[in-house]
């Protein structure tokens, strides 16, 4: 498509053409109305003046006779101006006035008539037009008084010319403006298209140009940029997942393979094979767990797990998890405490339960109190206690797990949420290193966040989730998952 073709196809240009037509129509009708009214006004003026003169002149004829009439008409005919006078005898001979010739038959009629005429004193042969009134006087004489229409014609000419010019100006300005606007829009759209093509070609860091006017295109660009931001984050997440899968799953896979190979190479007894096989199964179970956790995180982060959202009380989730983990904590020499207040929530109960379970598991694993004197606790907890708390603050539901362990140094907290990160202090403990990432992904899915704080001493990990987020409301119709019907 040529550049011009592209230009005239733009919405802006087409709109301009429509407006151009409308404005031209408006200007034409305005001028037409003006012209018609002016013409009417001039005609009215002529008739009023002529009528006045007729009554004056007939009065004079009545009082002073033919002589007075001729005298008056002659003297008036000599005045400069566009007034026309003619008096004829019953036989049709002109005896006074300034009209040289008329269209035939004019003097035979009476009343108003528009006619071509020639003035008596004029040398040229050009005829003019006039509006005249012929009156029958007593004694068979006829009086014609009228006025040249040149003035009216000229005025009409001026209006017509004005109409032409204004139409020309409207058309030129309209098309020019249209091209200007269309090119402006087109340039910005082209810039956007260029960026999107770059992005489609693989450069996800590209962003649409956003002007400062805040107009509709800017807002569109802003929204598209926000979308690109999200897509890039998702892609980065995906890349991170695959990198991590490559790195952290290959290690145990290698171990697995080495063990199998070793068992094969050594011609051991059945018991040796059995041990090797059992360890193989154990290792593969661990791999499956890690894999599942990774998939779950990826799903939560991409928002796919938004199905199965319903309304429930976070306090129930907290007490359920408390009930599940209480014996385990006790076996590890810890006490699991529960403190709940009603905290209604809209979300995926299963995922939130799992996130909270991960936090509790972490607290049991890493929350053993550090040795040495400790500052006064902020939360009244004994050294070996873990507190699960559910409450609501404004519109945010808070599900927190507080322990009295060594905590996480502030600098490490952001880092701790990342996948596979196991802080140095916990390297020796078993675990996939995915617990906090999953909890964080679940919080993000619900429009909230995972907060790690200092319980002085200890760690307080809090799932802060809006009790009813807009994003969830928007997609809630999808949660009415219709069972699959089979034909």
């Amino acid at each position, binding site marked *: 498509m040529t550049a011009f073709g592209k230009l005239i196809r733009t919405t802006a240009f087409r709109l301009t053409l429509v407006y151009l037509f409308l404005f031209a129509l408006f200007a034409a009708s305005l001028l037409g109305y003006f012209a018609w009214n002016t013409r009417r006004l001039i005609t009215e003026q002529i008739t009023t003046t002529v009528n006045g003169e007729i009554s004056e002149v007939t009065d004079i004829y009545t009082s002073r006779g033919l002589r007075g009439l001729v005298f008056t008409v002659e003297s008036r005919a000599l005045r400069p101006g566009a007034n026309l006078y003619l008096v004829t005898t019953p036989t049709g001979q002109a005896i006074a006035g300034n009209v040289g010739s008329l269209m035939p038959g004019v003097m035979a009629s009476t009343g108003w008539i528009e006619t071509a005429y020639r003035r008596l004193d004029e040398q040229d042969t050009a005829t003019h037009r006039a509006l005249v009134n012929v009156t029958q006087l007593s004694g068979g004489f006829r009086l014609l008084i009228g006025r040249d229409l040149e003035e009216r014609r000229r005025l009409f000419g001026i209006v017509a010319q004005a109409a032409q010019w204004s139409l020309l100006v409207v058309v030129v300005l309209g098309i020019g403006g249209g091209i200007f606007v269309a090119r402006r829009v087109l340039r910005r759209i082209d810039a956007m298209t260029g960026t999107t093509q770059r992005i489609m070609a693989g450069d996800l860091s590209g962003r649409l140009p956003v002007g400062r006017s805040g107009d509709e295109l800017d807002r569109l660009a802003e929204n598209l940029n926000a979308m690109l931001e999200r897509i890039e984050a998702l892609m980065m997440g995906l890349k991170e997942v695959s990198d991590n899968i490559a790195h952290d799953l290959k290690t145990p896979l290698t171990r697995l393979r080495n063990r199998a190979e070793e068992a094969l190479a050594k011609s051991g007894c059945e018991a040796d094979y059995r041990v090797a096989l059992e360890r193989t199964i154990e290792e593969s179970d661990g791999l499956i767990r890690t894999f*599942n956790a990774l998939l779950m995180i990826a799903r939560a982060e991409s928002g796919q797990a938004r*199905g*199965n959202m319903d309304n429930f009380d976070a306090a129930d989730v907290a007490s359920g998890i408390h009930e*599940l983990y209480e*014996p385990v904590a006790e076996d590890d020499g810890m006490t699991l405490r529960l403190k709940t207040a009603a905290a209604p929530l809209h979300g*995926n109960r299963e995922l939130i339960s799992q996130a909270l379970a991960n936090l509790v*598991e972490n607290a049991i*694993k890493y929350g053993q109190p550090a040795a040495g004197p400790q500052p006064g606790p902020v939360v009244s907890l004994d050294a070996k206690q873990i507190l699960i708390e559910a409450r609501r603050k404004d519109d945010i539901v808070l599900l927190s797990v507080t322990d009295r362990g060594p905590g996480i140094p502030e600098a490490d907290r952001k880092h701790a949420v990342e996948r596979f990160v196991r802080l140095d202090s916990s390297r020796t403990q078993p675990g996939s290193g995915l617990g906090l990432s999953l909890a964080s992904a679940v919080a993000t899915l619900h429009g909230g966040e995972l907060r790690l704080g200092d319980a002085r001493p200890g760690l307080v990990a809090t799932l802060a989730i809006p009790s009813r987020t807009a994003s969830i409301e928007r997609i809630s119709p999808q949660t009415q*998952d219709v069972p699959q*019907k089979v034909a």
Partner: protein
Amino acid sequence: MTATAPEMRLLIIEDDRESADYLVKAFREVGHVADLASDGEEGLAMAESGDYDVLVVDRMLPRRDGLSVIGALREKSNRTPVLILSALGQVDDRIKGLRAGGDDYLPKPYSFAELLARVEVLSRRNVGPAEETTYRVGDLELDRLSHRVARGKDELTLQPREFRLLEYLMKHAGQVVTRTMLLENVWDYHFDPQTNVIDVHISRLRSKIDKGFERPLLHTIRGAGYMIRDGIR
């Protein structure tokens, strides 16, 4: 494994030849009869004509999707219990499978012990004491209405969750129940705890029902799960 379960007739609808052969062999080894269908249409035809106790259906099948096979069976009022196997292990996929008419859902990869335990619990041969108000195993008695549990002449005090745990075990007395089955059915959680939460709950229950009695009733089945049964049976 458990020779106590009566012989079952199973239909396995699975397109992966190797895992299907493995399943057929493994089921035969524990004394069940297993037939094999390798696509959805064949599976549907076999399920309709044969008298099977349990169907094991893969979700993704050639010619006819697993869920559609189940739907077609259910539409014809065939109520044979179905266990769905799927590589899609997520919560919403499980719910979709159960809504389509499946009775249980097991994500791949699974252990055979888990599959066997679930299939045995599903089987029509093992309707068991499901609707009875009192469960009895040996001298252990559980009254579902009054929530009373007694062993011999001793009245036992159980926490509500311990009661539900014991109730589930006794409902499936003589059958292996796995940790995941307990987590799903007693606690209604479908995630995989990293710690041995279920074992700890079981050991608490065991200390209440078996401690101080000569004959233990709650047994640990190595590599599979737990079973409650009268030792002599």
